[in-house]
């Protein structure tokens, strides 16, 4: 990232992008000339690609069937003078199993640490969609829930109390109808707010676990936090370790998790900021 392209506001620490440039690069995402990385996640066929097209102005064909996006699409948009890179992840029902598409989505959110993860939700099937939302909120607290297909909810006679949903989930919730573009300006503003990091969110953590599992998670996460004090999602890592997740076990053994602590990447960031100071 060259210093000249960085807007002055990023010099202030609360607005530092948290994305892991090095990891994003490894995942094939070039963050040069971009201020923030935004990931689009969600269940299959919730309108992610439609939201993606609306945000980026691209006209990729969107199909009405699950599993349409198997490869990752990328685009970008500008908001309030900042450049947002948007990465459309494959649609998945969960991040717990090990199919290729789930792994792509999981690795991106975990290792890429996007500045904002937008979870697109089919509001007519809220309960099932929430399963993925809750898993994502364990990994990142920089999330925006996009309640899409509000028009269909209305067609089916469903009413959604989106404000109390936002309170329950602890992150912003934006109702949209992507097909007609309703709510998208609100979505963009919210993405901007979360990306800037001005407001800290404390998202919902999975509660209804058995006492034995809860205490095991607590014990394990204390040690993970000891080892990597700045890791933002120790409890989730503990969950994956207890579940015997091979990829996370490997990430722990090879020290990849250590790189995820913001401290590890702040150094080059700091040097850059010094350079960008006017003489």
């Amino acid at each position, binding site marked *: 990232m060259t210093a000249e392209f960085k807007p002055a506001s990023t010099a202030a620490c609360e607005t530092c992008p948290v994305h892991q440039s090095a990891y994003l690069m490894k995942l094939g995402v070039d963050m040069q000339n971009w201020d923030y990385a935004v990931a689009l996640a969600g269940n*299959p066929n919730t309108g992610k690609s439609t939201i993606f097209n609306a945000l980026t102005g691209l006209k990729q064909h969107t199909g009405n069937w699950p599993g349409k996006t198997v490869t990752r699409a990328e685009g970008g948009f500008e908001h309030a003078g900042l450049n947002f890179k948007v990465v459309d992840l494959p649609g998945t029902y969960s991040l717990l199993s090990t199919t290729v598409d789930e792994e792509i989505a999981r690795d991106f959110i975990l290792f890429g640490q996007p500045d904002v993860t937008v979870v697109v939700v089919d509001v007519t099937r809220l309960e099932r969609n929430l399963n993925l939302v809750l898993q994502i909120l364990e990994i990142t607290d920089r999330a925006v829930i996009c309640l899409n297909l509000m028009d269909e909810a209305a067609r089916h006679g469903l009413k959604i109390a989106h404000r109390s949903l936002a309170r329950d989930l602890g992150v912003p919730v934006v109702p949209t109808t992507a097909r007609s573009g309703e709510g998208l300006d609100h979505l963009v503003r919210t993405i901007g707010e979360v990306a800037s990091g001005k407001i800290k969110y404390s998202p919902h953590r999975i509660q209804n676990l058995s006492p*034995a599992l809860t205490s095991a998670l607590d014990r394990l996460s204390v040690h993970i936090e000891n080892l990597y004090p700045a890791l933002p999602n120790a409890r989730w890592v503990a969950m994956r370790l*207890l579940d015997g997740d091979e990829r996370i076990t490997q990430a722990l053994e090879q020290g990849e998790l250590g790189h995820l602590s913001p401290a590890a990447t702040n150094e080059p960031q700091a040097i850059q900021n010094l350079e960008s100071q006017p003489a």
Partner: protein
Amino acid sequence: MEKEKTLTPSELLTMAEDLRWQIGGNIHEHLVEGIYTDASRIADRVVTGERPKFDLDRAIDRLVTSRVWGIPIMILLFTLVFWITISGANIPSDFLASILIGKIYPAIKEIAFSIGTPWWLVGILIDGMYLSTAWVISVMLPPMAIFFPLFTLLEDFGYLPRVAFNLDNLFKKSGAHGKQALSMMMGFGCNAAGVIATRIIDSPRERLIAIITNNFALCNGRWPTMILLAVIFIGALVPAHLAGMISALAVVSVTLLGVLITFVMNWLLSRSILRGEASAFSLELPPYRPPRILQTIYTSLIDRTAYVLWRAVVFAMPAGAAIWLVANLTIGDLSLAEHIINLLNPVAVLIGLNGVILFAYMLAIPANEIVIPTVLMLTVLTAGVQGAGAGVLYELDSQAGTFELLTLGGWSLLTAVNTMLFTLAHNPCSTTIYTIYKETGSVKWTAIATLLPLGVGVGLTFGLTQVWRLVEAWL
């Protein structure tokens, strides 16, 4: 105290292992249960209102995925799509041909000669590159401009997953993964895309089966060939008012034959080199969504029609030049093309094709789209229909003209049917082969996926030809 000390990663893993034993039971299930409980509590709190008693989506689903009506409705819908395509494409196709080939072609040729362009340059540029491009456009553009938007409308409406649902059981019975129905649906657009779409299949065994058999789903590049041959050879057998419907049925039959071959190959593969059990999966039927018609037409024209046409033109121009060159470079008495065609003829005749068709398929490996234009060019340039560079022009500006030319090139009904079968089953285009290599990372599986369809195609055409000739001799 334990908590004071920082554990190493491997100590952490040991601890996780110990804790797992202490908790006992299935931790994965515990976790999933916890997540589900949270999700349902939250959803209960925020969602109010009841779904109406009559649900249109359900009603439609009961019909189009019914055991009895599901497959007949599917065949009916696809026939309808092809029928609209075929009856709608005739007039614009003839119109484009009469302008591009009937008017512009002789005109620019005359201009080129009048300004003293050497004959060989006129040959390469106008008889080669221009003519092949003009053919590609007039043969392919009208059917594509009708077929792709219609197909995309069905897709946007949400019908394709229902087709997958109808076929799921058959896929499982054939020893493959039900999701293969979805990658096959993608293959009906583009096989390279279909091969990438197999990523949704988790088991490597079933994914390989899906990759190997994807080519039996007719792709964008091959639909126009099918439609053209069905119209000029099969539609022509019946009275004019039935021609459109019969041609459409012929295309549907070949398409279904492709699906049938897919099942047979699945069955054979899963009982030989890719032995194993079929795994279960859940398929979500998305809600029906009223398609946004104008936008669908726009994106399908831009994404599919223009894309396929552009690809065809890009490959047709150099191919046109190459075809003109091989047809005009002579060794001894014969042109290079005639040498190659004569070489291929004995094999070709055995499978009821001819050397020209086989040679066209070789030239068309980069893009199946140019098979028919290549056949036409080679026929014009070698079959003595038209002297190279001479001014004699046959009427190629209509479908009737195409029929006459192919008949002069030795085509019979059998040749046309065999060409349709061979179009359905032959090696994938080079883009697909490359994609298969990238996805499997294996030369062996790439070779199998390339050669198996070719083998099936040769087998089918050989079998049909032998039977056909026996019946002919007997009659």
